[in-house]
């Protein structure tokens, strides 16, 4: 079985971000705060578990992003994947999701795969689109927000459970090849092993360069980026930690959530 996993490098949720007026996009100040998208970590783990259960399985990793995003491919190989392709983009700007999905879908690793795994969502763009769009490019059946999966005996495809609202799950049978987007909670992603990481760091990745010009007719664009609206007053408490604690106790007791003497 051949599995392709799409992984993206994203900033930590606490990373300092600001608006880059000239670029019309978001600027992440500190480049040391990048890591693998949590949802994609779960997708890599799911692939590695299949490989452990079905010897002969190979896992290929693809990531599209600037030079620094190469480390997430090596990390995925450290977790147990076999090879990786890095599609290097000139920068960090917004790429139309259908353009991006088209880039990945055009790889031979995508058309040859029996199973393609994506995350349910990238934590920076939060679209939930790249997976289902790739499935459409490749005419594959697709299930999103997968929280459980079983590879069936040969010829019977894959059975998954997808998470829906209200504590319900939907069971879906898909023929292979198929594309699944993985929801967190499906597994606990392992740490890369030292020996595999050493191999990963020596491995030569396939490197492709995409030209920003290839996105000549994007279906959507970013008009501007702003700081979000405040929905409530949002009083920031000032002072030392203990001064803030005193203020908070007063507020909570004034509103009779607490009794202080």
């Amino acid at each position, binding site marked *: 079985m051949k599995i392709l996993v799409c992984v993206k490098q994203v900033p930590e949720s606490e990373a300092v971000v600001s608006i880059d007026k000239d670029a019309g996009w978001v600027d992440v100040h500190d480049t040391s705060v990048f890591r693998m998208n949590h949802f994609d970590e779960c997708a890599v783990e799911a692939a590695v578990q299949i490989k452990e259960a079905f010897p002969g399985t190979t896992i290929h990793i693809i990531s599209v992003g600037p030079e620094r995003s190469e480390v997430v491919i090596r990390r995925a190989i450290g977790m147990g994947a076999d090879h990786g392709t890095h599609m290097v983009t000139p920068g960090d700007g917004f790429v139309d999701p259908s353009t991006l999905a088209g880039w990945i879908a055009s790889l031979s690793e995508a058309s040859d795969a029996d199973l393609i795994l994506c995350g349910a969502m990238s934590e*920076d763009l939060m679209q939930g689109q790249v997976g289902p769009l790739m499935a459409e490019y490749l005419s594959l059946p697709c299930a999103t927000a997968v929280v459980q999966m079983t590879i069936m005996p040969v010829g019977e495809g894959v059975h998954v459970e997808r998470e829906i609202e209200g504590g319900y799950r*939907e069971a879906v049978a898909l023929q292979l090849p198929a594309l699944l987007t993985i929801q967190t909670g499906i597994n606990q992603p392992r740490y890369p092993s030292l020996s595999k990481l050493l191999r990963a760091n020596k491995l030569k990745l396939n490197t492709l360069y995409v030209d920003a010009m290839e996105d000549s007719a994007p279906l*959507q664009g970013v008009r501007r*980026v702003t700081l979000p609206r405040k929905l409530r007053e949002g009083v920031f408490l000032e002072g030392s930690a203990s001064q803030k604690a005193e203020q908070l106790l007063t*507020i909570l007791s004034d509103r009779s*959530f607490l009794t202080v003497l």
Partner: protein
Amino acid sequence: MKNMQTSGSIVVIAEHFEGEIRPITYELVHFAETLQQFSPAPIKILVLDERAETLAKSLARTTGKDVLGLRAPQLAQYNGQVYTSILHEILRDHPPLYVCIGHSSRGSDYAPGLAMRLKAACITGVSALSVQEDMICFSRDVYGGKINADMVSNTETTVLTVQPGSYGPAPDRDLPKGNVCLKSMTVSPQTSTTLSTTPFQTSDLDFSAARVIVSAGRGIGEEENLELIRDLASVIPQSVVCGSRPVIDLGWLTYDRQIGVTGATVTPDLYLACGISGAAQHVSGMKGSGFIVAINTDPMAAIFNLSDICIVEDLKTFIPVLLEALSNKR
């Protein structure tokens, strides 16, 4: 039948579950009416179901809009491929301006693929609308809600998924009921089949008695630090400990305590968010809380945009200071 053509209209795809129209459907109608102010076009509701008649009639009555019920035996359960192929067949020859879909587990499952088939841009998780220099902009959260991006579409038809909770239901008016039209569809065999839809976990946790929710996020860092959250809850009467999804995924709290779009929706008098960034999927489960206090090391965290009181501190040091200050007073 002619008035049921979708060309140039704003189409709303109704969402329903176990015979009931989901609240997001009425929010979508409200969203469509807002969009209509910028882009005057008739609103048509499409509802897909095994039988569709009851749902279509009820929608026409409650919304006053024209409703097209699409029925097929394969619609007894939700299936993404069946939805995509039926909607594509209906919409391709009469391209609407907009297709409005819920940013729910089902809506986000089929919207991107449908958009691609219609050669339409798909903008997901839309929470607001605006017009800038004659262009309609669709606001969506990026970077965990720390930044808002205004997106524009470059295509004739645009597929939009709307974040639940962003638009209340359309205001009540006395409207004449809309027309209903039913159409039977045929669907060719698919490569995916929905087998069942079943409740996964039930809970006897009763939030109605909880006046206060003390909620832990990934920012607690380690399972041991959950003790701090529990200690804090123990000094606040009528409080319950809950958490964001990562804390439940890690197994540190049980699923019934997950707050958010795939967990519980709560409206306590006080919600204390500790180490929670405030992503839309979490916020939709708690934003109706009476008073919101957030503790977070990141002054830009999105949770602060909906908090009444914002505390920029490390919860690991701040909560002990708070508990100490309280015990000195008691």
